[in-house]
């Protein structure tokens, strides 16, 4: 690990046409396009591809196939825009919803084991916020493989990449982005976890598909690997992060454990009950009830608990009842849910309800991109100038199709649609014939300095303690309901934690599979994500989608119908307009949002 600073020549360099960082759904959908087009492509991943967090998605992929009853991509578009509380960019949402059926059919052709209807077509289930005819009644749009849709999709994409002979760098962690003097991205500095070797992976196009950062909160449905690595790397390289105040609380995480219980449970007919046995969602969302948008359901649950109608000795959760669906439906459509409830809540959901609580689930914001996955940032007069050589897809990106609140099942369709479109865009650049731009001499300096500090520090803060402090702070200050006092104090505390992050030390100095080092490096990324979140949330003085402020309870389209951009440098905020102009259809102007 003893590499000198200031001389990139000492680090090994490997060159590719394209580099994808992350092997979840979006990364592997993109790499498939690249490998099949014959580009030299490397996919770098912290974990074996099928262990990426896409594997944990349960309920379905949203696409208006219309297999169950009439559906239309325009209705999907409307639901998505309404779900986003009008913060989503309508051109991107239009593109996603129109393309969704095509990418689902493709996935089926790749071998995805979707559930089937009697006529052999793909089974679709109802889901939160999915409606027919612009909010009129629920529609079955979620294409499902039991309650393991993400697992089936991730394995199918991996399998297809095996067929395409995609080259994976498994258990490699990207540490920093390399940009030259023009700001063009040239690749990453990366760590091979097994050997501790540091290497430069140079590419003519670098694509981040690094996933979300749900682990910056204490109660999260997310995997341990979701530490916002792409966001940290982008922020340190001067790229802004967009709309980071918007974090989705999934209504149904297992109380205490945080493990996800799919919205598909309510799609199949499950209902939420308070301590009086009342189906309280009828009061909050008279039309869609338990299938209202996630932010709405989570707030309603929080409200019930706050007003003393929670369940259990501490009245701190509500109940998800599904026993009335009967064992046949549960065993056929929701087998993993039964397994999870048995293991993590000690209940057999065929007979008893599951204790649930709103739990951090998804990051709507991320690295700003256009519909081709190209990263964009303000430059001069252009609010969305392309950053050369840099792409981002999936949860780490913000295109923005989810706006202030993501519609259930739109995460998987986002991965497929934009993974493919970004892959196609890179293919269109005809990279194999082009030369690599020269690496700057100081390309790895910042990274090597971080590694050197960790190697030499003999005493300091424990990584586990500092990470726990960060999670506790975020949980307490960026929860379902926020206000100025909570957020200002949150900003102060996160800045304090940042000081501690710079003083961490690890006891493990081995170069062989040093997971302590990996966790310390992940903390560098978590803190950037947390800062972006709390600073952006503190500044936005309105309630919209997942940002619910008790001191500013209303949406304010006059002042706040705009995207936040957070810059690491000076914790600076900037804003850019929301795209309210779809390319081929009429716009959906903002209106009051009720379910």
């Amino acid at each position: 690990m003893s590499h000198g600073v200031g001389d990139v020549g000492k680090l090994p360099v490997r060159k590719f046409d394209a580099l994808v960082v992350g092997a979840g759904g979006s990364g592997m959908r993109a790499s498939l396009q690249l490998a099949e087009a014959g580009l030299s492509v490397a996919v770098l991943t912290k974990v074996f591809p099928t262990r990426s967090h896409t594997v944990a998605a349960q309920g379905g992929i949203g696409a208006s196939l219309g297999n169950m009853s009439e559906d239309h991509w325009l209705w999907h578009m409307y639901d998505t825009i309404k779900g986003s509380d009008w913060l989503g960019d309508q051109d991107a949402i239009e593109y996603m919803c129109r393309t969704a059926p095509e990418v689902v059919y493709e996935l089926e052709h790749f071998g995805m084991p979707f559930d089937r209807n009697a006529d052999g077509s793909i089974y679709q289930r109802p889901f939160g916020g999915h409606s027919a005819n612009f909010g009129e009644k629920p529609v079955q749009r979620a294409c499902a493989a039991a309650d393991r849709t993400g697992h089936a999709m991730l394995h199918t994409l991996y399998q297809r990449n095996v067929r395409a002979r995609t080259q994976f760098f498994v258990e490699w962690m990207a540490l920093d982005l390399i940009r030259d003097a023009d700001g063009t991205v040239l690749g990453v500095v990366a760590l091979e976890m097994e050997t501790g070797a540091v290497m430069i992976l140079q590419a003519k196009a670098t694509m981040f598909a690094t996933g979300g950062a749900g682990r910056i909160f204490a109660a999260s449905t997310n995997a341990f690997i979701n530490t916002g690595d792409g966001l940290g790397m982008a922020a340190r390289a001067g790229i802004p992060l967009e709309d980071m105040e918007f974090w989705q609380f999934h209504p149904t995480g297992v109380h205490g454990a945080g493990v996800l219980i799919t919205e598909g449970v309510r799609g199949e007919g499950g209902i939420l009950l308070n301590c009086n046995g009342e189906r309280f969602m009828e009061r909050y969302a008279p039309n869609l009830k338990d299938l209202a948008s996630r932010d709405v359901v989570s707030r309603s649950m929080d409200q019930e608990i706050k007003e003393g109608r929670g369940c259990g000795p501490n009245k701190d959760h509500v109940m998800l009842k599904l026993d009335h669906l009967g064992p046949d439906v549960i065993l056929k459509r929701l087998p993993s849910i039964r397994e999870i409830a048995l293991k993590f809540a000690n209940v057999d959901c065929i007979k008893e309800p599951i204790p649930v609580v709103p739990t951090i689930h998804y990051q709507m914001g991320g690295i700003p991109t256009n519909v081709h996955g190209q990263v964009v940032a303000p430059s001069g007069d252009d609010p969305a100038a392309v950053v050369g050589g840099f792409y981002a897809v999936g949860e780490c990106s913000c295109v923005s199709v989810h706006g202030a609140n993501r519609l259930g099942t739109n995460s998987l369709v986002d991965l497929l649609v934009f993974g493919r479109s970004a892959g196609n865009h890179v293919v269109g650049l005809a990279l194999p014939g082009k030369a690599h731009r020269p690496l700057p001499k100081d390309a790895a300096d910042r990274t090597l300095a971080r590694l050197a500090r960790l190697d030499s520090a003999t005493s300091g803060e424990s990584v586990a303690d500092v990470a726990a402090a960060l999670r506790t702070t975020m949980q307490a200050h960026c929860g379902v309901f926020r206000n100025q006092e909570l957020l200002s104090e949150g900003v102060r505390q996160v800045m304090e934690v940042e000081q501690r992050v710079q003083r961490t030390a690890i006891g493990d100095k081995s170069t062989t599979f040093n997971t302590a080092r990996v966790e310390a490096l992940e903390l560098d990324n978590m803190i950037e994500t947390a800062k972006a979140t709390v600073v952006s949330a503190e500044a936005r003085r309105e309630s919209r989608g997942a940002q619910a402020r008790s001191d500013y309870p209303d949406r304010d389209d006059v002042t706040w119908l705009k995207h936040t951009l957070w810059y690491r440098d000076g914790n600076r905020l900037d804003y850019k307009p929301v795209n309210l102009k779809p390319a081929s259809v009429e716009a959906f102007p903002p209106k009051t949002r009720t379910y």
Partner: protein
Amino acid sequence: MKFRIYRYDPEKDAKPYLQEYDVALDPHDRMLLDALMRVKAVDDTLSFRRSCREGVCGSDAMNINGKNGLACVTNLLELKEPVELRPLPGLPVIRDLIVDMSQFFKQYHSIKPYLVNDERPPEKERLQAPEDREELDGLYECILCACCSTACPSFWWNPDKFVGPAGLLAAYRFIADTRDQAVNERLDNLEDPYRLFRCHTIMNCVDVCPKGLNPTRAIGKIREIMVKRAV
């Protein structure tokens, strides 16, 4: 709670040893993985893989009191103390509880784990009857954790020649898929004294699978089809 954990760092240990830990648990700690995180908080040199913590990613497979399983779905109440943790048997150890899974994945890749259908796909989905789709239940849910293959004596003796239960389960997943057109090639690929026929139906694989899958049954099905094809 008391643990005895296999330790080995090739950089400083001439040979592996068992290290004892006694850690205080939080009342909310439910699974073995929760306890392992407590151990790691006091000794950050202990290395193991983990990710989803809900039994779906397959990262934290290890040998727990003599039996392979996933730490994240192994309830602490089921474990006798001191809990003895070792890496998955039969694969080279990289460090502590982390094994080199190359051989395991090589066997998985050897069965061509992808749908083969060279017909031009329809504009919409390929249709598949619900009962045909049901044939894939119990097969596609595999998480590639390697609990099964590394519990199999036949895989221990011949990891380079015997595909192993996980790979064979995957092979049957495609053989059983009505959309797949390469059944004959798949059978040819397995018709070998080792690749398929080293399975001696010891059934350790069934015993340890954290997803409740049955590779032995899948292997039996492949054998049946092979026999039918021969006559």
